[in-house]
């Protein structure tokens, strides 16, 4: 076997395992979001991540992957739709010639989990009040939208990539985009009942389970080691062997600095070391380092992370202050931190590393030139305009035509029982731990009381069902 083939095999091991780590981030979002929302919606909030990752995986296989990484022009990929077995098995060949050192299948796997993350962010700000069908409809729409932008910035032929935009693993592509759609959704849905008093003052709606939020955050941190380092798409990067280890390092120190930055900011600004703010700080730091992880020095990663941690705290407050109800803080944590990370790369990118990655040039701090910073800003502006306007337009249309928000009584009762038919924690609402039927049965065993059978439940559905 030729060494070249072996390198491909090793690259594939790395990329597939990185993709698997990123896929697990769905569990991270599920628990972060379930923990920061209310008990009555817990099953819905957690379960929706399974649903949207399902939608995303199918849509991305059908068209998204072709749009993003199929051979095409500088705006969009024009081939590789509903790819065949051979197209997925081939390496560095049309329609996925972009992936020169891994099979197309590995490319799909790695990219679809990124789309899934971006989509997961969207629903954070729309939590606890969106109709279920919207997840299907907008999920499909956004997956396509996302694919277009990822073509611009990541595909060798993409126009922003050609300009030298540096977005190593997607502060802009994944997080900022997700936050833009989240913002559109939050604006169109409006705040949850009771979020703002008649005097417009915001009321806190505490999430129901902080340990869930901690678990979610640690799963995200864990998955991010696939997210950023995996974006090398191989084990040798330019001159550097095992460069992904360096990317993992910048990711880790940034996240750590974000935890400290977040809790410190909360302690100073809010006078309390708010646990949920520390968690937001970690995530904001990971979001910010995402663009920069391959380009910056360790000390810069610490700075980027610490700043992002405080952005999370102030950003969450500010979004609420301007009257937007974002239960998870998606706009601040993924949007503002994503912008910061993208710009910070333009500030701190080390020329040698940029050269080694053959992407853009050194940052202001090293070169004294505003060029790279300008490119980053251009990317933010164009993506912002594109993704926000189209997301807003799509959701606005859906709202007008069919309505995207649940009825008041559904929201009050909770989505679990009203939409899905069962509480997320049934035993907190129903006093019969043995199940509904227990008593109508168990007292047959003892010499207990006998009474007329419970009225037949409305279960006429089943006969046809089975």
């Amino acid at each position, binding site marked *: 076997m030729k060494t070249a083939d072996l390198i491909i095999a090793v690259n594939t091991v790395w990329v597939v395992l990185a993709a698997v780590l990123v896929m697990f981030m769905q569990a991270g979002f599920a628990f972060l979001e379930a923990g920061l929302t209310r008990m009555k919606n817990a099953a819905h909030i957690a379960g929706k991540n399974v649903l949207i990752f399902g939608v995303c995986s199918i849509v991305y296989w059908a068209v998204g992957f072709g749009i993003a990484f199929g051979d095409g022009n500088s705006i969009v990929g024009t081939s590789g739709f509903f790819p065949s077995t051979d197209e997925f098995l081939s390496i560095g060949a049309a329609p996925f010639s972009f992936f020169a050192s891994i099979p197309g299948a590995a490319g799909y796997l790695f990219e679809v989990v990124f789309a899934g993350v971006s989509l997961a962010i969207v629903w954070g700000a729309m939590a606890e009040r969106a109709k279920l069908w919207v997840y299907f409809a907008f999920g499909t729409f956004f997956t396509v939208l996302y694919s277009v932008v990822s073509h611009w910035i990541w595909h060798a032929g993409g126009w922003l990539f050609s300009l030298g935009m540096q977005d190593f693993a997607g502060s802009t592509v994944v997080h900022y985009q997700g936050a833009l759609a989240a913002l559109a959704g939050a604006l169109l849905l409006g705040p949850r009942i009771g979020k703002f008093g008649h005097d417009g003052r915001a009321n806190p709606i505490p999430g129901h389970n902080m340990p869930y939020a901690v678990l979610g955050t640690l799963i995200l941190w864990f998955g991010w080691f696939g997210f950023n380092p995996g974006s090398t798409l191989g084990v040798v990067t330019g001159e550097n062997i095992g460069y992904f280890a360096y990317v993992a390092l910048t990711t880790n120190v940034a996240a750590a600095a974000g935890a400290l930055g977040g809790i410190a900011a909360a302690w100073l600004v809010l006078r309390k070391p708010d646990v949920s703010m520390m968690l937001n700080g970690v995530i904001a730091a990971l979001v910010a380092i995402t663009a920069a992880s391959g380009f910056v020095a360790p000390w810069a990663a610490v700075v980027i992370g610490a700043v992002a941690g405080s952005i999370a705290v102030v950003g969450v407050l500010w979004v609420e202050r301007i009257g937007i109800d974002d239960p998870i803080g998606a706009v601040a944590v993924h949007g503002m931190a994503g912008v910061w990370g993208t710009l910070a790369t333009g500030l701190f990118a080390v020329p040698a590393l940029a050269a080694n990655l053959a992407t853009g040039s050194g940052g202001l701090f090293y070169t004294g030139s505003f060029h790279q910073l300008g490119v980053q800003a251009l990317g933010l502006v164009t993506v912002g305009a594109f993704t926000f306007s189209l997301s807003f337009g799509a959701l606005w249309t859906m709202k007008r035509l069919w309505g995207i928000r649940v009825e008041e009584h559904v929201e009050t009762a909770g989505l679990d029982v009203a939409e899905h038919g069962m509480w997320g924690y049934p035993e907190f609402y129903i006093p*019969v*731990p043995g199940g509904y039927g227990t*008593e109508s049965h*168990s*007292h047959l065993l*003892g010499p207990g*009381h006998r*009474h007329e059978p*419970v009225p037949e439940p409305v279960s006429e559905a089943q006969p046809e069902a089975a």
Partner: protein
Amino acid sequence: MTKVEAVVIRERVETVIDAVEAETGHVGVTVVEAIGHGRQRGVTHEYRGRVFESRFLPKALLTFIVEDALVRPVVAAIADAARSGHESGDGIIWTTRVENVTHNRTGLPLAEVEVA
């Protein structure tokens, strides 16, 4: 009117309410999860090497606000339905006269709403 309160084992909550509705026609109850201690001995627990008794067992506390005329049949229906046949723990019932029974939605005395 009269308040009938009953402590029963949790598995029997629905049986008891069914029995009250079936045998007296009274509808309306408020249920609270409770833990109780009585003649019945509690549970022996073991946790990380400590063996100890907890005197408490899971129960439910039911509150029925009923017409005075219904008190006896309601009490009978509850006691009858709450009996599990186990050797202990079936709980107890007691009643109290209550005044000013008001129905929030209408603001009327509950009695009038009941007839309504």
